[in-house]
């Protein structure tokens, strides 16, 4: 078990975080990883604690990046945004947070949680709210457990900040989104102020150390078959099929209103005995995989494509017809397959009114 995160863990941490949000491109890679590695070099490793090892009354807050990753690459952080967001809530609540946890242990958000912990000099909790990345800030285990995301503070790269106090999680997301563009396209978010005692039942445990382990595997660059077996041991992931991309479909289709994304499809001809036609539905991530029209995996499962020739994860903006890919599916945390979880992040939320293959 990783007891702390040091500068040398950063590349693995980044790779693992990418595995759990495969849609995100690599635009921020070097700036964020070198920023974090520098911080850890100067301030020393950040302790990574199990939530049970903290006193139940310890105040905790989650952080994440709100908005678009490419906007963050265009307008890089000044460096104090996350610290400022946390301090803002500390002032409001008149408290001092004793630990930080990531809202989502995936994407750049997993890294900024380490950054914030290093800046504030507090430990990082080995737990998060999503276990992967979802689109909206109330798509969390804390929300399902009745923990309010507010008061929350969002600080943009311009130094401006927004403080939101609303009783309902979904309302908070709408109010924030209206402001993200104004403050610079992305914002540092501090939300879900609570205590370690609440997090013991409300957060998903072990998800931060998991991405570090996954990242180490991905960096080894072994052959795809062995990689999938090893990933399966840590994450429960398995290969649905191996095939060649034959078509990228960008159809203008009616999109659902809850999640901002442009629906499109990827058609893959399976290689092997079955030779099925796979259809991979894309929103801001892969939301469903059909084999010959039969649904074989869908949100909240985490689906990603492994570029077989390179032995690395393929991001959705780098796909080309002719690429040979493995379609991998990783089960999400169990809470997302509950009726409430499925309503929030399941297939229906992406406009696909079909029964999930795990619940048929």
């Amino acid at each position: 078990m990783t007891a702390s995160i040091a500068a040398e863990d950063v590349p693995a941490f980044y790779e693992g975080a990418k595995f759990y949000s495969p849609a995100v491109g690599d635009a921020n890679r070097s700036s964020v990883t070198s920023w974090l590695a520098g911080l850890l070099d100067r301030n020393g490793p950040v302790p990574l604690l199990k939530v049970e090892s903290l006193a139940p009354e310890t105040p905790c807050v989650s952080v994440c990046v709100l908005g678009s990753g490419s906007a963050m690459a265009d307008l890089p952080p000044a460096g104090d945004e996350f610290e400022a967001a946390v301090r803002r809530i500390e002032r409001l609540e008149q408290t001092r947070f004793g630990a930080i946890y990531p809202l989502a242990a995936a994407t750049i958000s997993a890294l900024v949680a380490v950054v914030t912990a290093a800046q504030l000099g507090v430990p990082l909790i080995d737990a998060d709210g999503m276990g992967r990345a979802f689109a909206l800030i109330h798509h969390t285990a804390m929300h399902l457990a009745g923990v309010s995301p507010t008061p929350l503070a969002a600080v943009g790269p311009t130094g401006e900040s927004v403080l939101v106090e609303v009783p309902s999680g979904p309302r908070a997301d709408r109010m924030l989104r209206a402001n993200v563009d104004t403050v610079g396209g992305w914002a540092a978010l501090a939300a879900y102020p609570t205590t370690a005692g609440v997090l013991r039942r409300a957060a998903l445990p072990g998800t931060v150390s998991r991405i570090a382990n996954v990242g180490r595997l991905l960096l080894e660059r072994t052959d795809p078959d062995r990689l999938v077996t090893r990933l399966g041991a840590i994450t429960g992931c398995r290969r649905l099929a191996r095939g060649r991309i034959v078509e990228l479909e960008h159809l203008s289709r009616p999109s659902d209103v809850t999640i901002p994304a442009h629906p499109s499809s990827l058609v893959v001809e399976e290689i092997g005995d079955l030779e099925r036609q796979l259809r991979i539905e894309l929103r801001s991530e892969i939301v469903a995989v059909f084999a010959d029209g039969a649904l074989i995996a869908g949100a909240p499962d985490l689906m990603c494509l492994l570029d077989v020739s390179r032995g690395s994860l393929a991001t959705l903006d780098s796909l080309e017809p002719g690429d040979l890919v493995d379609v991998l599916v990783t089960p999400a945390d169990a809470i997302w397959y509950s009726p409430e979880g499925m309503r929030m992040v399941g297939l229906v939320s992406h406009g696909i009114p079909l029964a999930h293959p795990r619940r048929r």
Partner: protein
Amino acid sequence: MSRPSTLPITLGELTRIEPLSDAVAHLFDPARPVEQVVLAETFDRLRRCPPHVLVVLHDEAATGGWSLAAALHLAWERNLSAVVVSRTVAGSSSAALAERLHMSLIVIDADPIDVALQLAGQVSAPAAARALRQARLAEQLAEQNGIRGVLGALNRELRPVSVALVLGEIVLAGQAAALTDRHPVKQVEVAVNAPGERSSARLVAAVPVPGLAVGQVESLLKLARPAVLAAWAQSRLDAAGRAAHEQAAFELLRHLSAAPPAGPGEAEVEVPSWTGELGWEVGRANRAVWLAPVRPSGVPSPEVTHLVRAAWQRGHAAWPLIAEGDGWLSWHSGADPDDTAALRRALAGFRDSAAAHALVIGVGRAHDGVPGLMRSAAEARLAAHVAREGGPTTVQWFDQVGASAALAWLPTTEIAQVADLCLADLMAARDRAALVQTVLAVLDCGGSLSQASNRLGVHRNTVLARLTRARQLGLTFEDPGQRLALHVICYALASLAAEESTP
């Protein structure tokens, strides 16, 4: 009039009439019956469809991408007949998936609700839908004015049924697959003859069973009968007119080439411009072909000429065919007199027809201009006479004939009659065939007994004995005054005997 069929309408029939006639249909099985039409706007509705339903996707079930793939899969699970979907939703991979699932996919441009309503009406009243189809076919047939056009329209409209117009066992037009019965098919035949006319021509259709209404196909064939008759009569009229035209034109050409040049400077006969109107090519290297029956029996009938023309001009519509004496003349013009590839291909293709009509073929040499054509025609005719010795389908090139061609012109029958009178003893002898053969061999071999015995495959003494007996019966070939006459008589008798022994 037979009772209209009340069998469920098939996919193939539906796609022939509005509103699906304009749609892009990827039909896996056109003979698949459609018992009901469902307008499905949710996947729940799809899941409740009974088998043999044609489903029109709409609204939620037709949002594109995954939805069509999922709908095709459900249709396959439910054993539905076909899926109809708007073009905005269907990509090329959807057609590929439909094919993989053996599911029929029909892509429409019109509004799905309107289409579903129209289809529901057609499926609930199959007889009315079929009547509509007959009307549509009648319209299409009325637009055609050739046999090929009529058969093409029939085959298009009746797919997957193949239809052919057959005379005897020969397919005149349409798909030859109509005569084969590889698949489980039922053959439907409709005789094609005008009132009071006896003809063996008929329309034959191979109908895949089970699935398609055989009675329906039969009534559609009957609907096509007047169109076939009209087109056929027209083509026969045209052919007769053209044959007369070509014959006259060739006769004129012959006169032109025979007339002496008008002035000392005009050694060449100019090619008249009207040959172009007939589609003829004259002027470059012309190589004539003479088609002739192996046993000439006067001027061939127009019907035979029609059939030979159809076979000869298959693929070479511009090559002329002129009825001339007891055979037909054609020619090929090219820039290179040595290039015979096209002609050889045509001859190979004509072989079956030559066998069917018991024809032999003579080919002349290539000569320039109109006089050259006439010369080549004479050579071809001579070669055809020589070819008769080889039996039907023999092709004789004049280059390979030489002076022996003269023998082909011998009136062998008349010479045999002379022999009957002059050599009565010989003609009465039972062994005359062997005697004639032996004398002919000895004369052919310039009197050499050993060569003759080799050629005949008998002992030299046998040859000697036969010659002695032949002399006693009047074949006194050592007499120089009689030798040529006896040689010719022996040749004529031997050729006649050879002809009689061939079937």
